[in-house]
């Protein structure tokens, strides 16, 4: 046990000492921060768009649209002008010169046909276009109703704003996770799991390969059993990855806690309009994520250890790792199908197969309701998978780690597993 501990300690200490570790430990939170702040700064909390309203109406329509846009906070109507020859060209010039963000053209026909025109340097902002549609459409409806003799008070009363709140039902409890948040969470978890398993799995591989190529392994194998060495390695690198996550989690919490003051005096009322919503993460979700990360890491790092042991050089290892990465990719590319339809037969299948479950099951969990039986079934299969894969991997490892020269064929590998 003390021997295994020595291996674990070396893997941990040597890795945590590297610049690479601290760069990613520090850049992780910066990345999180950017993920949160940039959408707020550039989309949500940004200054309102300066536009000109080209008003070709004989009614009060244009004036009411201008007022309504002004009060939306999204747009600032610099002036309302009536059309004249050459006006549109000169406005376009102003947009190009960035003195203006865009201009909206409304005519009397707008009220009847519902057609207006917005020209801007940016027409892809969902928030801008949404606000314009909303304002122009609402006022057009108002005017039509008034023309039909409905009193303005009735029209006003009829315009009850609708707010649809979504809450995810998880088992018997209703959580604070909303639908948009569920997807964000599922997606973020999938990326994080994929990255972490791939990056740290490859770390195990290169660590095995390093010992093999610089021949330290011979002394080590005379001191501990190959299985002990492999276990020590996997646990050591795993501990590094958990430590990395812990650093990220702590800094993420710190950043989120100080989000509002750091947001640059963003009005609190704007908070519900931000396009990026921070997911509410329940304890259960964190536990599922953690469990499947550990399981997935153990499963894949055993495979990566075997890949490292069967290779004699970095190039060989890069080739030999392809099948492993490929299997991991299957789960990763499935997340779109998974989060869109988390209860399909496909989603069920891949959340049970040990090789894809570490990514698929957390995604399903975040996106839908997973019955407890399925969760435990998936976990049980994952444990069986880890044991089976480690058994095979440790046999390949045991033989491969002392073999140099020609790259082993599939037949050789089978022989190693049989004979080891």
């Amino acid at each position, binding site marked *: 046990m003390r*021997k295994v501990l*020595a291996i674990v*300690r*070396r893997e941990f*200490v*040597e890795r945590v000492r590297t610049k690479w570790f601290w760069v990613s430990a520090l850049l992780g939170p910066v990345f999180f921060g950017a993920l949160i702040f940039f959408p707020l700064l550039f989309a949500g909390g940004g200054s309102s768009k300066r536009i000109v309203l080209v008003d070709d109406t004989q009614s009060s329509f244009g004036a009411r649209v201008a007022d309504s846009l002004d009060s939306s906070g999204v747009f600032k109507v610099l002036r309302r002008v009536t059309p004249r020859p050459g006006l549109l060209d000169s406005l376009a010039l102003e947009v190009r010169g960035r003195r203006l963000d865009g201009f909206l053209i409304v005519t009397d026909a707008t009220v009847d046909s519902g057609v207006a025109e917005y020209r801007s340097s940016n027409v892809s902002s969902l928030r801008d276009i949404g606000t314009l549609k909303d304002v122009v459409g609402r006022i057009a409806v108002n005017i039509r109703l008034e023309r039909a003799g409905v009193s303005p008070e009735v029209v006003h009363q009829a315009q009850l704003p609708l707010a649809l709140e979504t809450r995810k039902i998880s088992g018997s409890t209703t959580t604070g996770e909303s639908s948009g948040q569920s997807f964000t969470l599922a997606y973020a978890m999938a990326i994080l799991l994929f990255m972490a398993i791939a990056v740290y799995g490859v770390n195990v591989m290169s660590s095995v390969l390093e010992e093999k190529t610089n021949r330290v392994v*011979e002394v080590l*194998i005379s*001191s501990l059993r190959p299985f002990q060495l492999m276990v020590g390695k996997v646990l050591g690198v795993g501990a590094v990855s958990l430590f990395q996550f812990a650093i990220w989690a702590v800094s993420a919490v710190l950043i989120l806690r100080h989000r509002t003051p750091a947001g640059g005096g963003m009005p609190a009322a704007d908070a519900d309009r931000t396009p990026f919503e921070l997911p509410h993460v329940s304890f259960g979700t964190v536990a599922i994520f953690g469990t499947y990360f550990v399981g997935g890491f153990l499963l894949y790092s055993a495979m990566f250890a075997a890949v490292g042991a069967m290779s004699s050089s970095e190039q060989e290892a890069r080739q030999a790792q392809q099948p492993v990465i490929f299997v991991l990719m299957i789960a990763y590319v499935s997340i779109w199908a998974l989060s869109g339809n988390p209860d399909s037969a496909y989603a069920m299948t891949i959340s049970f197969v040990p090789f894809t479950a570490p990514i698929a099951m957390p995604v399903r969990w975040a996106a839908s309701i997973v019955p407890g039986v399925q969760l435990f079934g998936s976990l049980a299969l994952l444990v069986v998978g880890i044991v089976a894969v480690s058994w095979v991997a440790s046999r390949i490892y045991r033989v491969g780690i*002392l073999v140099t020269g020609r790259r082993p064929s599939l037949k050789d590998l089978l022989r190693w597993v049989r004979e080891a």
Partner: protein
Amino acid sequence: MQAMNPSVLVVDRVTKRFAGHLAVDALSLEVPRGVIYGLLGPNGAGKTTTIRMMLDIYEPDEGVVRVFGTEGGGREHSARIGYLPEERGLYPKMRVLDVLVFLAEAKGVARRTARQKALDWLERLGLADWRLRKVNELSKGMQQKVQFISALLHDPELAVLDEPFSGLDPVNAQVMKDAVLELKQRGATILFSTHIMEQAERLCDHVCIIAKGTKRLDDTLGRVKETYGGRHVTVAFDGARGGAEGVFADRRLVAKTDDFGHYAELELASGADAQNLLRALVASEARLARFELTAPSLHKIFIDLVGAEAARADVVPEGHAAHA
């Protein structure tokens, strides 16, 4: 103590094959406590494979290994065994002291003990100032020192050194030799393999010569010399060799000649008298600096035993045989 358990290491009819190639063939040997034991043989004889089986790196296909009286290789006793493999290697990016402590810990030595001993050794070999440097910042010679500190740091009762002198500069070879002798004085047993007979002759108490995976000779150095001695003459010249060639070629006097130019090792023909040989050489006008009845060098014995085989090119280099 010796009477109770004279053999530290026993190899009993051990066989190892690598995909059809027979690396070690029913080899048996015993290493008595407290000796320096030379495992000698040409390249590809099976020395490294045998050593790896002693240390549990390979499992024998047949036969058993007993270390410190218990069946099985040395892994269970790793804290009592020092191992210097033929192919050396350290972690290039680790600090010197950390590598030493780690390798000792992996053998089961307590961290604190390992650290203290590592510092003592680094001090002793003049590497104390380098203890916090990374291994790859050290010169090759310094790395060699670190390597054998890693093998001997924990005062092993049994040191297994595979080609310990290969690649060492003369200064480090001296350091290594001193370390081995000191270890022996403290009562440790040392097994080392080499294909350089001069080293074995200077250091070993007991030699075992193997070739093609089988044993050719296994005895104390003294008895080996006795067995093969008495019929050998060393002749050294003081300049002119005169007609010595003609005398060496006389099969009535000389059976075999190993001529080095300034001197030659001769094996007398059966029934020949050394005095007749001396007379013949003097008569041939060779100027002699030395004429001595000697035991043959281990080198000569070795060449006689395995020379013909070693000269043939059908030997498989060890370490590359495993994948075949």
